[in-house]
């Protein structure tokens, strides 16, 4: 038994907060971080008599997601009530979709999509700790600002086989959604939340094992670690001859502990029934047309285009395409039709250099204009500035922005090529290193780095290494 290799079977349920201006069923503006209960009204507080009206833009975003995930869009879908009591649920039910969702089926990358539906988010419970008011018992407050935020719930088929796969795929999904412009997809702020259904089975078998549900993981790191920990836990159980129990679990990223959220006795009976306050959503040709027209180029297609049209390697193309902000910056720089357009691969390399130097995820938020990075790459390619000097220029750009040509000019960082300017410096280096000259003359070219290094020091990196080598060979008659 203990020799059996297991494979994991993982499906994800992702809740995405849509970045509409207003909530799903009322006109309260969406926000983040406002004082509690300042973005609420009779509808999202569930006051008696208030009625929901669905946000057309949320439906539009839902259709865009459906198109991006290659789903079948239902010509008619309806909302249901999911009934349960919890303080963050003002009406005692969540308006969600049940057996007639907006989108069914679909695929993103290698993972099949089961369904996509729309619903409203719950409010936020803030734990206060012990409150004297309630005789020393634990108390919380409810802030309804978030309550009613439109959510798209995306459910995958169980097509993922490892924690890493899940993390990787989730990144693709996130970029796709960001690219669509339908969500901020910020896990830290809770605009993207993920549950994972996990089971394991002996590798090569097809029957599904008992699954557990790992709830509400709020960063990519935690998701991968959580899934890994749960797979390990299930494996340990099976190897010890114990069964996996179907339950909902919580992963604590600090302790790596996995705990059960609900006992079986608490199994929910949600008493779904069609929401009588909302009429069915009929998708008209005009709505479909509008959603299609709004579709941007998606990351998978973009990566493919970077490969095909720009000749980037697959890895590099993905790197840029799957992080929308990098791809956008890259394309903005590439579009800069200055005197000499940068070569795509070289520009990609310089973009990596830039990303390594800035704190934000988005290079567009840095001091460095895409035009500046493009021109820097072009200057390097045209040998007007050396690789080394260009890095110094980039440091300056990151610190204070500006035009690379002007920085090169002001700082005297222009490349020193063959000829008058470089020759005396090379001669000086040869003079200072007679032992090296001896070796070189004897045909041992290894120590030439010493000469080049000397020249670089003297020129503050402005010299072109190739030119230095050429002058040395010339002078020594090699």
């Amino acid at each position, binding site marked *: 038994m203990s020799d059996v290799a297991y494979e994991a079977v993982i499906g994800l349920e992702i809740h995405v907060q849509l970045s509409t201006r207003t909530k799903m069923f009322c006109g309260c503006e969406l926000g983040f971080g406002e004082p509690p209960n300042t973005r609420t009204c009779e509808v999202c507080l*569930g*006051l008696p008599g*208030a009625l929901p009206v669905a946000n057309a833009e949320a439906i539009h975003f839902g259709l865009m997601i459906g198109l991006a995930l290659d789903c079948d869009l239902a010509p008619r879908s309806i909302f249901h009530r999911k*009934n349960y009591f919890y303080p963050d649920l003002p*009406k*005692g039910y969540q308006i969600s979709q049940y057996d007639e969702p907006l989108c069914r089926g679909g695929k993103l990358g290698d993972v099949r999509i089961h369904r996509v539906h729309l619903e409203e988010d719950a409010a936020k419970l803030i734990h206060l700790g012990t409150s004297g008011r309630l005789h020393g018992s634990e108390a919380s407050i409810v802030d309804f600002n978030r309550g009613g935020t439109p959510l798209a719930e995306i459910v995958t088929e169980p097509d993922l086989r490892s924690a890493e796969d899940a993390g990787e795929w989730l990144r693709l999904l996130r970029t796709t959604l960001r690219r669509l412009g339908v969500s901020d997809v910020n896990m830290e702020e809770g605009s993207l939340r993920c549950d994972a259904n996990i089971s394991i089975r002996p590798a090569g078998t097809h029957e599904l094992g008992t699954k557990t549900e790992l709830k509400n993981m709020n960063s990519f790191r935690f998701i991968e670690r959580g899934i890994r920990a749960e797979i390990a836990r299930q494996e340990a159980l099976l190897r010890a001859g114990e069964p996996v129990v179907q339950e909902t679990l919580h992963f604590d990223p600090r302790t790596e502990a996995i705990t059960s959220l609900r006992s079986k006795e608490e199994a929910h009976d949600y008493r*779904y029934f069609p929401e*009588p*306050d*909302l009429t069915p959503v009929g998708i008209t040709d005009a709505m479909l047309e509008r959603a299609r027209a709004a579709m941007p180029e998606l990351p998978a297609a973009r990566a493919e285009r970077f490969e095909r049209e720009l000749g980037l390697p697959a890895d590099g193309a993905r790197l840029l395409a799957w992080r929308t902000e990098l791809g956008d910056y890259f394309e903005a720089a590439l579009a800069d039709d200055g005197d000499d357009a940068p070569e795509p691969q070289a520009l990609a390399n310089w973009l990596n250099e830039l990303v390594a130097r800035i704190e934000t995820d988005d290079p567009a938020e840095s001091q460095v204009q895409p035009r500046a990075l493009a021109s820097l790459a072009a200057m390097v390619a045209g040998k007007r500035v050396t690789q080394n000097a260009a890095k110094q220029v980039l440091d300056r750009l990151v610190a204070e922005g500006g035009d690379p040509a002007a920085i090169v000019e002001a700082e005297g960082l222009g490349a020193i090529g063959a000829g008058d300017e470089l020759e005396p410096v090379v001669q000086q280096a040869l003079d200072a290193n007679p032992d090296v000259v001896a070796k070189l003359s004897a045909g041992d070219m290894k120590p030439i780095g010493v000469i080049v290094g000397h020249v670089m020091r003297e020129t503050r990196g402005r010299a072109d290494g190739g030119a230095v080598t050429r002058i040395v060979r010339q002078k020594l008659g090699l």
Partner: protein
Amino acid sequence: MTDAVALTAAQAAAAVEAGDLDPRELFEAYRARAAADDLNAFVWVAGEAPGEPASGPLAGVPLGVKDLFCTEGVPSQAGSKILEGYRPPYTASVVARLAEAGAPLLAKTNQDEFAMGSSNENSAFGPVLNPWDRSRVPGGSSGGSAAAVAAGLVPWALGTDTGGSIRQPAALCGIVGLKPTYGAVSRFGMIAFASSLDQAGPLTRDVTDAALLFRHMTGRDPRDSTSIGLPEEVRLPSARRLDGIRLGVPDDLTGEGVEPGVMAAFEAALDRARELGATVERVALPHADYGLSAYYVLAPAEASSNLARFDGVRYGLRVEADDLLTMYTRTRHDGFGAEVKRRIMLGTYALSSGYYDAYYGRAQRVRTKIAEDFKAAFDAVDFVVTPTSPGVAFELGAKTGDPLSMYLNDYFTVPMSLAGIPAISIPCGLSEGLPVGLQLAGPAFSENRVLDAAFALEQALGFDGSGARQ
């Protein structure tokens, strides 16, 4: 000055228009009567006349509004203890619309808790008395509105009807009550009982008043997804004859359980209709007899969900407890009355895992069949007519011990609710000195024709309701 209270609302509006009646005097006359109410018809009465004399087509004729309509800053409890002292921060669309048309809020009227009841005995404010006989119920759930209009304590009032809650009390109090087509009037701000059935409508002294009030109630409201309004403007009725009109008496909805006096008054009214040129035919509504069963699944199911928001967190009553579950269960135990609890239980059961298909799912299919029955019937006849209620106003307490016998009050009114079609109740005579109602129902959005036919019949019947107005 004329005796303002003797005028119908339409007459009062005309008198104000003509400058013969001061709207502030009109308001004050009714305010004084409402304040002296001894029927327990009101749960709140305005302290003074509105500062600005109302303008608009309703000419300042004051309005009674069922407690369950939210009115900003004014108590709105839906007759329930769980909303004790609740004053909403917003006003129901229909009340706002009527205020804009010039009908100021005079009073909030008593009702069965959350509109669940047919006798107005299920109110946290206590029962309402029938002005025809104070030992009897006014019907429900809009019992306060019906009693107040009948007694001349308000010129007209708003009620809501889920399975008969406008028509049945109108019948028992000898006034007119119209349940419009589902979707004709906005539900925004109406504290919900059963969302797919609830509909607001007028309770008035006569059919003309009903048409006038309804004209200013109907319309699409962007805040209620299910509201559509009417395809045509509401006309004030003028028909005097019923020539060529075919009235259908359902085969499957008469006889059993109907009091003889009620049947006699109903038959006599049909005779008058014939005299006006109508033909009376039998019509088949084969599934109508199942209406009550379907209704008592669907309405409680929706109610169980609609009433989940009363949890002691954001408004209303709370019974403090150290843990959340106890806070919830005690709050709801203490806050809801017996009938409300019964329906919450019934509805929760009907939706619960393993029972949905047998109850909720089947009831929705019965609903389809009933709607189809009516469609077919309206191919053969113009209107379906029935007694509104199987009996006249019963003694207070007579049915409180037996929920099922209470539910049977809705036998004639529920099928129209399930089909979403308009139906009006007009007084058609007396039985044992108590009013009997005749219900006339038409196809969806046929309110103008329903009102016209009801008007012609009303004129011919000449029912005198002044006996209830002292």
